[in-house]
């Protein structure tokens, strides 16, 4: 070292070539000047001998330049002033001196000849590695780039046309991969797996090279997304707006599609137009992180854009692209979107974005200048069979990852199928294939934690049960047997309403057997009858029977919805109002728990406008909340209760059809029309009340036994006293409960407190119109 381009007047004599080489070294941030820079400088010159030579060997100057640049890499900083020459460049220049004669101009031929004679520089080693023979090159140069007639065999029709020099063919066809000429000369096909590219240090730092990951086998093809991929490839091949924007709900696999594209590019399964492309996922968070100084963020974004512009093979992928709107914006600063716009508009960069429909509407749509640069591709949720295919590919990866942590697991094929069908059926607020993958992943994690090595259908069911609140056993068990005995179970708990129980059971059974239209609720029932006859009780028992928990009953007292504006309580406030970002009571509960019983008590008291939201629920099986989300109701049971007939007609005499027509007078007819069954609850007669009284008493006796260790036996006289005192058919069973408290519970509590009764067996009987308690001897 120590020599520079001024030595021996080289700079003057090279006719600007060495200056070009210095420029190239600066571009690559190299602090020295080498043979590589000189060679690239020669290739950059249009119509240069080097370019002609490269064409003769069936290569393309730009590609060769990029390949050499990639092999060199970028440095840490360019030297100020004149960079020192490498020893090899000095050798080459001295050799060229010999050819030209001291003091004469150093022509390109002399330099090229010296370069190939020296024979060990990186460019020469590179071209040798792709099949060029130094002797052949030197032979070409020796003939002063004039055609060697003896060697001229054949040449592609127009390969020599662009150049001043007549076409010749080198003594030996260099590249073994050269294809027979058709149309134009065979291009260099880099044998290297790594496509040739410009150095992109900033992108490398802030991006994730999907193409590289694909080559390393870390990514997989996108399953079941042929149509979408074709759309994306078509958009990328466009001359304008060649920027696909993937729109789809969270979890439908937008990122997976782009990873699939990277995989296809890496495996050469794409049309020619995408061959050699490199997809780099830009990490917007990383770009913003650590930018403490003003302008730092802009500088990074600019650098990324300039690298992406200079490296035409780069396709930027920005996941959650709405984050570029506003990223880096501060007082007086541009956000990233403003900086991307010109590059996108000019078509300098190719960019793929992905975001959800919501975010697209909220952020990108506002910025129409940005929006119009993109061509949207709608990504729909995968159907069950597609999701299963995906799961079959993903599950082995989950297992491999667990295995790498030392947990060998197996997953039953049934479990995969169950994950798809159960999530499809029961998990409505998430999307395939994300939800089924999650279910399997959690089931595997749980197996690992519990030290088991197999994942079964039951494990998957228990995960989904946790998400939905539906008991695991219920998800997989055969329910036919249970539903056959539905009436018996309900009748045991709801007294005296055999007919109502029968109608409800019949309808629910039919709906669950698949005899209902798929988008209708399981049932919409109007329970009509006097107070206290078991309407709410039946709803509760139905919740327990169907969904195993009384919590599945969501109760709305429609008396609270007498005002028009109370609708917003059910489905959330409209945009622009306070709390519009929160959901409504009904919509939120149904979203989280689609398997529910919705009880609308005293429906006739609600404001008629409140009914409107139920029309679509009863008819189409969904309600639309304040944000426009459709919430599925097809797995819910709606029970409306009313006691309208009491004052208008003797409900004992009313037939269902009559009740329906009376209901239509009080409710809006279109609502009544959407009700599956109007069910009349009979008033309770003495035998029914006696059975209910027995239930109440049994319940109280049980409580005394548990809390006070008292075993109480009750005389019939007590029963008669209670029944006789408060029997009033119109009030239903509720007064009965109050009588039990008054005649039995409170006197007994008094006795316990006064010490008249202690633990043991006691008997309750009537004496003088009052209940008295006496101890029984064992």
């Amino acid at each position, binding site marked *: 070292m120590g020599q520079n381009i001024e030595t021996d007047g080289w700079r003057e004599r090279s006719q600007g070539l060495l200056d070009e080489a210095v420029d190239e070294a600066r571009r690559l941030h190299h602090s020295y000047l080498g043979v590589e820079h000189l060679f690239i400088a020669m290739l950059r010159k249009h119509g240069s001998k080097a370019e002609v030579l490269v064409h003769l060997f069936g290569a393309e100057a730009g590609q060769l330049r990029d390949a050499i640049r990639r092999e060199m890499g970028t*440095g840490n900083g360019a030297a100020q002033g004149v960079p020192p020459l490498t*020893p*090899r460049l*000095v050798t080459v220049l001295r050799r060229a001196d010999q050819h030209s004669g001291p003091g004469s101009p150093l022509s390109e031929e002399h330099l090229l000849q010296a370069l190939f004679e020296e024979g060990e*520089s990186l460019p020469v080693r590179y071209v040798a590695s792709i099949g060029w023979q130094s002797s052949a090159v030197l032979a070409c140069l020796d003939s002063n780039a004039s055609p060697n007639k003896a060697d001229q065999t054949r040449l592609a029709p127009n390969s020599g046309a662009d150049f001043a020099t007549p076409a010749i063919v080198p003594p030996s066809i260099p590249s073994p991969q050269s294809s027979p000429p058709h149309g134009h000369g065979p291009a260099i096909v880099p044998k290297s797996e790594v496509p040739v590219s410009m150095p992109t240090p900033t992108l490398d730092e802030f991006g994730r090279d999907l193409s590289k990951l694909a080559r390393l086998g870390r990514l997989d093809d996108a399953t079941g997304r042929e149509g979408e991929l074709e759309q994306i490839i078509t958009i990328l091949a466009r001359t304008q707006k060649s920027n696909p924007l993937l729109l789809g709900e969270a979890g439908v696999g937008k990122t997976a599609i782009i990873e699939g594209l990277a995989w296809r590019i890496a495996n050469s399964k794409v049309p020619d137009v995408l061959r050699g492309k490199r997809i780099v996922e830009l990490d917007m968070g990383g770009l913003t992180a650590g930018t403490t100084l003003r302008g730092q963020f802009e500088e990074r974004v600019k650098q990324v854009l300039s690298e992406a512009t200079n490296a035409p093979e780069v396709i930027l992928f920005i996941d959650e692209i709405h984050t570029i709107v506003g990223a880096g914006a501060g007082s007086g600063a541009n956000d990233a979107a403003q900086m991307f716009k010109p590059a996108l508009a000019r078509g300098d960069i190719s960019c793929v974005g992905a975001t959800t429909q919501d975010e697209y509407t909220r952020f990108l749509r506002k910025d129409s200048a940005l929006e119009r640069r993109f061509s949207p591709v709608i990504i729909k949720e995968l159907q069950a069979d597609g999701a299963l295919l995906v799961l079959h590919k993903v599950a082995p990866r989950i297992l491999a990852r667990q295995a790498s942590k030392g947990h060998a697991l197996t997953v039953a094929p049934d479990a995969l199928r169950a994950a798809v069908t159960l999530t499809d059926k029961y998990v409505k607020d998430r999307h395939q294939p994300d939800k089924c993958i999650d279910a399997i992943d959690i089931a595997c994690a749980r197996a690992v934690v519990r030290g088991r090595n197999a994942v079964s259908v039951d494990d998957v069911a228990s995960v989904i049960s946790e998400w939905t609140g539906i008991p695991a056993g219920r998800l997989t068990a055969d329910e036919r047997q249970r539903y056959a005995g539905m009436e018996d179970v309900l009748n045991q708990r709801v007294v005296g309403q055999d007919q109502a129980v029968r109608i409800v059971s019949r309808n629910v059974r039919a709906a669950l057997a698949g005899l209902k239209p798929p988008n209708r609720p399981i049932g919409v029932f109007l329970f009509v009858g006097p107070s206290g006859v078991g309407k709410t009780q039946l709803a509760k028992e139905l919740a327990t029977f169907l969904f195993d928990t009384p919590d599945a009953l969501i109760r709305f007292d429609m008396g609270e919805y007498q005002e028009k504006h109370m609708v917003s309580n059910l489905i959330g406030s409209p945009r622009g109002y306070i709390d519009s970002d929160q959901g409504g009571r009904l919509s939120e509960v149904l979203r989280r728990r689609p398997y529910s019983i919705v009880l609308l008590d005293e429906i006739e008291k609600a404001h008629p406008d409140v009914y409107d939201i139920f029309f679509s629920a009863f008819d189409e099986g969904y309600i639309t909340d304040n944000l426009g989300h459709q919430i599925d109701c097809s797995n819910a049971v709606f029970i409306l209760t009313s006691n309208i007939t009491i004052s208008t007609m003797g409900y004992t005499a009313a037939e269902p059809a009559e009740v329906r027509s009376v209901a239509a007078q009080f409710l809006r007819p279109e609502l009544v029309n959407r009700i599956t069954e109007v069910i009349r609850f009979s008033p309770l007669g003495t035998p029914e009340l006696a059975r209910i009284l027995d239930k109440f008493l049994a319940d109280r006796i049980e409580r005394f036994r548990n809390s006070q260790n008292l075993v109480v036996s009750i005389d019939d006289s007590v029963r008669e006293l209670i029944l006789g005192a408060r029997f009033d058919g119109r009030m239903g069973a509720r007064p009965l409960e109050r009588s039990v408290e008054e005649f039995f519970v409170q006197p007994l509590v008094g006795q316990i407190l006064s010490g008249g009764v202690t633990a043991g067996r006691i008997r309750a009987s009537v004496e003088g119109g009052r209940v008295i308690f006496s101890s029984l001897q064992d």
Partner: protein
Amino acid sequence: MATELVLTYMSGPHDGETVRMAALGDPLECTFGRSEACSIQIQNDPDISRSHARLYWNNGKWWLQDLGSLNGTYLGEFLRSSKVNSPLVVKPAQIFRMGAARFRLDEPSSSDGRGKAEAAQISNKAT
């Protein structure tokens, strides 16, 4: 036995320069990296680790070993390059690469006429 190690830079600012060194230590070795303690210090290359790789003499051959570098060491270049995961034998005239720096292992006798040979005695990394 002290063996002479002859290496030629095949890229970078020293491209074409040949270094000869009397490898010392047991086993005889020559280390490469960004750190000053390395026998051959490679600066201004972001892809080079502090202690990147080493050549050591074993069974009459030079072996190339990666010292857990971040970006790897490769034997061969361009299409015929393989990552050095476990020590590999380097034959004379073979090129190996770390970051953008490339070296060729030369035969002690054949290096005289090649390039601008600089006899350099580089102290070995203290063992």
